[in-house]
């Protein structure tokens, strides 16, 4: 037989580990170079705070754009919930470092990173509580799904009844004190929250694990744990949201993901520990302590390192068999499933990886700004990211990167038009300011233009352009 399983064949490449080494060693070198370069970049003499902020936002936007490109462009699932994933990462990592990151030990606010164990404990407690809560929910969900054996409409009816029961339960519980024994759901959630709090009390034990490390080692470690934790929470929520919603197509999926973004925003606005509508303030901006025991800005290698790693890993994913499967699903779902691709798994993978990097980018954003407001992560921000991805060309990672840089820089350049060299015309400056203020209108117009031109640029080149048909 001609076609053999690849595991039955001998290794086709001499020294495959050498390929692995060569493909990864430059990444480490690049990350090291970034740390080195950060000294120059973050010296306030070279960049003032405003320029620094813009350059850092470019890095964060690249991460967001590339991760959204994986979802919207490569796997072709139109998501409008990217700001929601970012918000989850931002708020949870910021809350973790702020509350459990340790006590200030030097002047300034760069000291909330002295206790990696606290941050790690927070995310561990969160993960355990979520698993305990999600287990019974998953069982109920699977049981409801079995109803489809009886009739295809029954699962939907079952879910509706279940949701109605939960809603009634919560309403009744909120009106009675003490909560009646028959409010099963409310008691269940209270139990999970109690478990979470009980687990949090174990954090001091975890802190001692890292106690022997020096401060300069504990700081990056706790920041890394906070970022990873935020990313993993976002990825987990991507998994939970993705499994049911990715069965939807086109507009329906867009609406479902939009709904997710709104839910996250509403949850944050109504959450007292996360600052509510006012926002979460006094978050430590990431700084390390230098030789003179002074706080030193050093977030740039984190931001651009994340951008590099996000781009690289997503690039590798796209150019692998998993990525090929995603592209196949985008092109023709029925054909893809007929050649043996688990289409749901493929879409969920894109969603989860994209959500993870959005969460990490959110964590970076929180620790760059030092304050979070729920308004930042609105639906409009998701749309802005979709605009970036579309301008870059769906499925094109380099395009997303370039568009991320341009769309982040352009409003700032226009806002500062009066400071550009040779810019003397008052009306031109006013026009630039107007453009920056109304940039969302401009995005919409540019998007429409891109759609029209991209579809017919060949006609344009050959002089056969017509506005209709």
């Amino acid at each position, binding site marked *: 037989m001609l*076609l053999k399983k690849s595991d039955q064949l001998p*290794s086709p490449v001499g020294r495959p*580990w050498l390929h692995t080494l060569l493909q990864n060693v430059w990444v480490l070198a690049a990350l090291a170079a970034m740390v080195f370069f950060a000294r120059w970049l973050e010296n306030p003499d070279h960049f003032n705070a405003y320029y620094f902020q813009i350059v850092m936002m470019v890095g964060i936007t690249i991460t967001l754009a590339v991760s959204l490109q994986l979802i919207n462009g490569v796997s072709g699932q139109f998501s409008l919930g990217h700001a929601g994933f970012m918000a989850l990462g931002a708020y949870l990592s910021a809350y973790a470092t702020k509350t459990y990151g340790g006590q200030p030990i030097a002047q300034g606010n760069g000291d909330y990173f002295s206790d990696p164990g606290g941050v790690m404990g927070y995310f561990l407690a969160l993960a355990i509580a979520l698993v305990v809560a999600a287990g019974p929910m998953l069982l109920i969900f699977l049981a409801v799904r079995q109803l489809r054996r009886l009739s295809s409409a029954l699962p939907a009816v079952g879910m509706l009844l279940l949701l109605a029961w939960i809603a009634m339960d919560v309403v009744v519980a909120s009106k009675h004190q003490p909560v009646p024994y028959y409010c099963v759901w409310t008691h269940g959630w209270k139990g999970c929250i109690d478990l979470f709090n009980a687990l949090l009390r174990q954090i001091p034990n975890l802190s001692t694990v890292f106690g022997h490390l020096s401060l300069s080692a504990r700081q990056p470690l706790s920041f890394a744990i906070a970022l990873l934790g935020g990313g993993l929470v976002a990825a987990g929520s991507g998994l939970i949201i993705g499994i049911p919603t990715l069965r939807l197509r086109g507009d329906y999926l867009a609406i479902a993901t939009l709904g997710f973004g709104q839910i996250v925003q509403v949850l944050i606005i109504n959450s007292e520990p996360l600052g509510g509508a006012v926002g979460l303030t006094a978050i430590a901006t990431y700084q390390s302590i230098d030789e003179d025991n002074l706080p030193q800005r050093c977030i740039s290698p984190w931001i651009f390192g994340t951008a590099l790693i996000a781009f690289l890993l997503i690039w590798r994913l796209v150019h*692998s*068999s998993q990525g090929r499967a995603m*592209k196949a699903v985008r*092109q023709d779902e029925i054909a*893809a499933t007929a050649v*043996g691709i688990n289409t749901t798994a493929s879409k969920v993978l894109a969603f989860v990886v994209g959500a993870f990097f959005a969460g990490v980018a959110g964590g970076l954003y929180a620790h760059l700004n030092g304050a979070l407001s729920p308004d930042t992560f609105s639906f409009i921000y998701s749309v802005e990211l979709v605009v970036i991805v579309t301008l870059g060309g769906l499925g094109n990672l380099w395009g997303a990167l370039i568009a991320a840089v341009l769309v982040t820089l352009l409003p700032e350049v226009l806002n500062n038009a009066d400071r550009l060299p040779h810019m003397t015309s008052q009306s031109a400056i006013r026009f630039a300011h107007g453009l920056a203020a109304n940039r969302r209108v401009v995005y919409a117009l540019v998007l429409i233009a891109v759609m029209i031109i991209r579809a017919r640029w060949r006609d344009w080149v050959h002089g056969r352009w017509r506005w209709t048909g």
Partner: protein
Amino acid sequence: MALLEISNITVKFGGLTALSDFSLSMKSGDLVGLIGPNGAGKTTAFNVTTGIYSPTAGDITLAGHRIDGQLPYKINHAGLARTFQNIRLFSNLTVLDNVMVGFSNSAAHGLLGTFLRLPRFVNERTLLRAQSMELLETMGLADLHARPAGSLPYGGQRRLEIARALATRPKILLLDEPAAGMNPNEKIDLMHLIGFIRERFNVGIWLIEHDMKLVMSICQRITVLDHGQIISVGTPQQVQSDSKVINAYLGEPA
């Protein structure tokens, strides 16, 4: 023992019975035809076998395992691959990528292998490319491997769709009207190709086709469907002389 055993399958869409009481049995390496007038339920039979529809009643087993009502990709993993009546290639992907998608099922490197380009990934990638090129060579498409699949001529697209299905290492290949839209010369080529595939890859072939000359000359057995019902089963000679078949195609004698 039969490799593919379809017994008493019924498919209903609301009040419409698209297929009723359909049965078929195939051994390894069989070449079986399925014919019938337009709307007889031939493609429905394929769709229910490959899991795109769930049967209303009846069961399907492949090598002793029940596959009816399974998800299409699981049925493909079990050993059924198909082509489509209206070609469904991944037309923006290259010819090579199309075939590699079919092969990818067997890729064993996990996500970590992809992210870190672990030795396993490097090996698999090289193997995958080599195997895919070999398959394209066999199917006479190797020169076109870098072209987008959508840019191939019609006959090439048909061949590529068969190649993509073969890449999933099927035990049985389902071809839905492979000769549709081909000229007589291309049809003769296709006839040779089907025979060649059967020998070379040792697959059973189940074929829907409207071109009687092609069906009658290559199939060992033929099932005839009309209005969702089997009206005749047998060798090409038996089917050709069956009065029910003639009536179905030409109408009742006056």
